[in-house]
């Protein structure tokens, strides 16, 4: 339409002048959509069954190309990392203890060659034969051998380092307070890639060269639908909703697991400490964050700006002073 109008304005200046006010309205900034409650994910790894439905649902909804098949040998994780075309990634961490093979080593043949004597008319009321174990306490909530599974995704940081690093303003916080890359503005500089402390965002080097990452299914949110991954998750390991509500749920869940004796459970990014403001997509982990390839204290690159700038200024001043001193000495 703009093109059309452009051509018309060239053909007739008078008409163009007449249309000028209309043309100017196009340059007006559109009023932003009204603020909505912050939305995010709570990924509860204690419920994950490693089915990878989230990975496929994400690829399908967002029409992302498949990665080149590469058998990694890293447990069942052949996706390996998040990337420009992989916005959900299920990690598999095997923690299996090794015990001495079972068995007494004694041949059963020796013990079973004769029939054990049985009283065939045993009374039927001797219930004390069952060893008394208080119900519900006999088994731990998880095996001592563990296979940790964790569906990783963009953390949608409240104060996102990628957004700070973006020189074009392509990365914004949406009305849902999610972090979103505007593809028509991104110039593919890649500053966001190095700024992200989680290694989430990446440039599509095989495609448009721009930076891509999870959009929290912005298009689905606009239509009142859940993000595809949360919709596909069979066990509600990926929960979607208002961040305040999710954080409350996460605290309750943590308390419940600790009640069940899962003392190693912890929340990652649910408080405001991480990156001064916390994460809108946060996790319940069953081990230290580093086990899941998550930094315990992620650094914000912009924190380095002041000290390093000061250092540079001081060094420059010193060098200036020294050179003045040097030249004045020579004289």
């Amino acid at each position: 339409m703009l093109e059309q109008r452009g051509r018309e304005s060239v053909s007739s200046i008078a008409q163009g002048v007449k249309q000028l006010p209309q043309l100017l309205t196009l340059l007006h900034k559109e009023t932003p959509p009204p603020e909505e409650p912050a939305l995010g994910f709570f990924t509860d790894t204690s419920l994950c069954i490693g089915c990878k439905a989230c990975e496929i649902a994400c690829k399908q909804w967002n029409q992302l190309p498949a990665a080149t098949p590469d058998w990694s040998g890293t447990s069942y994780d052949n996706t390996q990392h998040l990337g420009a075309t992989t916005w959900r990634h299920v990690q598999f961490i095997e923690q299996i203890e090794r015990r001495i093979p079972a068995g007494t080593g004694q041949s059963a043949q020796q013990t079973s060659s004769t029939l054990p004597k049985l009283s065939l008319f045993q009374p039927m009321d001797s219930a004390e034969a069952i060893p008394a174990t208080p119900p519900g306490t006999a088994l731990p909530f998880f095996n001592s051998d563990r296979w940790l599974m964790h569906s990783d995704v963009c953390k949608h940081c409240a104060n996102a380092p990628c957004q700070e690093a973006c020189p074009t303003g392509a990365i914004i916080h949406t009305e849902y307070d999610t972090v979103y890359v505007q593809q028509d503005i991104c110039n593919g500089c890649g500053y966001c890639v190095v700024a992200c402390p989680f290694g989430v965002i990446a440039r599509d080097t095989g495609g448009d060269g721009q930076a891509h990452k999870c959009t929290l299914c912005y298009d689905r949110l606009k239509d009142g639908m859940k993000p595809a991954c949360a919709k596909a998750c069979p066990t509600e390991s990926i929960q979607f909703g208002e961040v305040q509500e999710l954080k409350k749920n996460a605290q309750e869940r943590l308390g419940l697991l600790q009640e069940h004796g899962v003392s190693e459970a912890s929340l990652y990014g649910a408080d405001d400490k991480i990156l001064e403001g916390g994460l809108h997509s946060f996790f319940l982990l069953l081990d230290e964050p580093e086990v899941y390839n998550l930094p315990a204290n992620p650094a914000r690159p912009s924190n380095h700006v002041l000290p390093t700038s000061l250092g540079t200024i001081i060094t420059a001043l010193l060098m200036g002073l020294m050179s003045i001193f040097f030249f004045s000495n020579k004289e």
Partner: protein
Amino acid sequence: MPGLGTTVGRGGATTSPQDLVNSDCILIMGSNMAEAHPVGFANVVKAKERGAKVIHVDPHFSRTSALANLYVPTRAGSDIVFLGAIIRYLLENNAYFHEYVANYTNAPMLIREDFQDTEDLDGLFSGYDQESKTYTDHSSWDYQRDENDNPLTDPTMQNPRCVLQIMRRHFARYTPEMVEAECGVPQESWLQVVQTLVENSGRERTGALCYAVGWTQQSKGVQIIRAGAIIQLLLGNIGRPGGGILALRGHASIQGSTDVPTLYDLLAGYMPQPAEMLDAKPEAQHSPTATTWGERKDQHVHKRTQQTLQEYIDVAGMKLGWWSNVPSYIVSLLKAWYGDAATAENDWGYHWLPKIIGDHSHINTSYDMLDGKVKGYFLLGQNPAAGSTNARMQRKALAQLDWMVVRDLYEVESATFWYKGPEEVDPRQIKTEVFLLPAAASTEKEGSFTNTQRLIQWRDKAVDPPGDARSDLWFIYDLGKRLKALYADSTEPKDQALRALTWDYDRAEPEPGSRLLDEPDAELVLKELNGFYVRKQDEEGNTNTYGFREAPHVPAFTALKNDGSTACGSWIYSGVYPEPGKNRAASRHSDGGTNLDWGFAWPANRRILYNRASADPEGKPWSERKKYIWWDEEQKKWTGKDIPDFPVDKAPDYRPDPKATGMDGISGTNPFIMKPDGRGWLYAPVGLKDGPLPTHYEAAESPVHNALYKQQSNPAAKFHKNRKDNRLASIGDPDYPVVITTYRLTEHHVSGPMTRWMPWLNALQPSLFAEISPELAAERQIVHGSWMVLKTPRGEIEARAMVTRRLQPLRIRGRVVHQIGLPFHWGFQGKSTGSIANDLTHSVLEPNVSIEEAKAFTCNVRPGRLS
């Protein structure tokens, strides 16, 4: 299915995955549920959140084990030792549910004096014929009977000939020590399992059992299922909420395929296919008494010839219990198939039904093909060249055909075996003419799925299939029309069945929005399955006769008659489409409870089977917490949260006359109405081909001798010993010392004919790998991530080595036994290719259902690739 059919009455799961959330304990054994049934497993996760204990017993640590409270590694093929020891524990410690066992099972029944147990005959029951390698005489297994043919009982269960005492002697040597020595499971772990099961049973609590092909695909699979079902009966867990046995089916509508069915030995609704024995003593491989239902009478009542309807009813029907209705069901089936041509004078067209003369199961048919006895083959969504056991033999067999029709979504291995494959193939030497026809995917056709829980769910068509692709229904319907046209004028007797066949499923109006004009009307097929009135009296008392299309629907199978006035394609589906415009399979209302308006579960929309057992003998709930179905004294009927699986007005205090027949012979306290005695069968007096009680036999290939009996493996299994392409490793063979089991991954489906064409899925699991323990890897110098070769007497394949502690060596009788886990999703077609795991498996078949043993066999491994 005969495992469950013989034990409790019907060959289907007794409960639904959704009901697992009511369980207090879930034992998963012989199943990798989280990976093969991830959506159903969500209910296990929910149950665990509500406090249920989840136990996984399996040779390899899978994604299922990761979520369990307790994972117990065990040796593949030793299941009956593990389960038998639980049975022994329950009996010896009086840890079973006394009231339930005494009233609802056949524990008090007396068994004939001439019955001899495996303890007496070192691994054989009485009645075994060494020559034919089958149990030819089952008569000694039967009950002692009175003059009315009713079983003798001892309610105190003290008589040495009663089932309970026979079981105590049978399982006496299945001790915790035996579990440790044979399964490689430490006694403490085993005891933890038993205690958890016992703690979570009784009046207040229930536990469920989930199994899948880890049990069925063994040469004694039916007996393993029996052992599991016996435990559930002893614990009082069947017919109650949160209890039961969930037989996890491996494909969409695999349950439906046996209900309607596609099996060679069954007619619709689990009535057996008529048989004609050609030999008095048939070979094990060719015994037509194979039945999936497991209800066929044995030798002493078995009529060798079933040429007339009456002879058939004598064999398939029963005097007592629900199966006394067989005459109504078979006549209605014949009316549905042959319409007006079926009359009382011609035995309702019974003589047109083909009679089976041998074992025509899948693997035996492949051997017949190999021998040149089979000329043509239709493959509809089946891929034997990669997906069936002993796949190399399967490909050789396909090459002996004259023609083959493959209908599939892609050009699968079975359609390409003639020019491609792991072996050198020369297309000039293969005479098979292959027709590959494009099939419509599930979203491109309407119809129904019947899943694990017997739930029939209607599926709408979303889009037209592309190009020439058409639904399977269209293909079969069109094929039938052409055949009927071809034989329309024939006067030959053998063609009359085809001429008489009713075949009218054309759409009355074109399908809205579709470019296809000749797709048949799937709802008309559903109408035939549901059943309709051929003749019916209206209000004025006039009898009207109807054609198929305008005929009124029958409301339920109770309306079916044996006088030719009703027609029904599968009696158990009756009620799914009770009136025009009311397709209950398409109903989708969830109430968060029993969900009776979500789809339709056969029979009669009952969600938990045998639910009369959820009440005590007086008809009161066992406990408030486990309340489900109970007797309403005021209304004089059974009521509750589900449809009662019991005559709704039969009072708990009803006692049958000793001479009563049919359902009148079932007492008000007998919940298992499909059984002639109304009781759950701990001991199976008839119906199975390998014995009345589960007995431990080693797998056909095993690293050890059977520690319990001289009899090494299932004496009735079909070994195919004379086949040179079915060589077996000997017992403890030093060339094949490693136990191997196969399984599925979440990322792919069976041999991959649908998933290995999907780039997204291929990226998730791109290559065949074998899971081996670090100990075995070190012993054989196999490096993680490198290639390894697996070898059995049937063939060799290569796979990437996944060295993982999730596999662990076991100590069996003092010596270390290694186990390997092998997913079986690959083949040489598709976008992700790899060796065919089934090139390793053999074709020894379970005697009752002719299923192959792919879950426990032996192999050897070495580093490197196939040259």
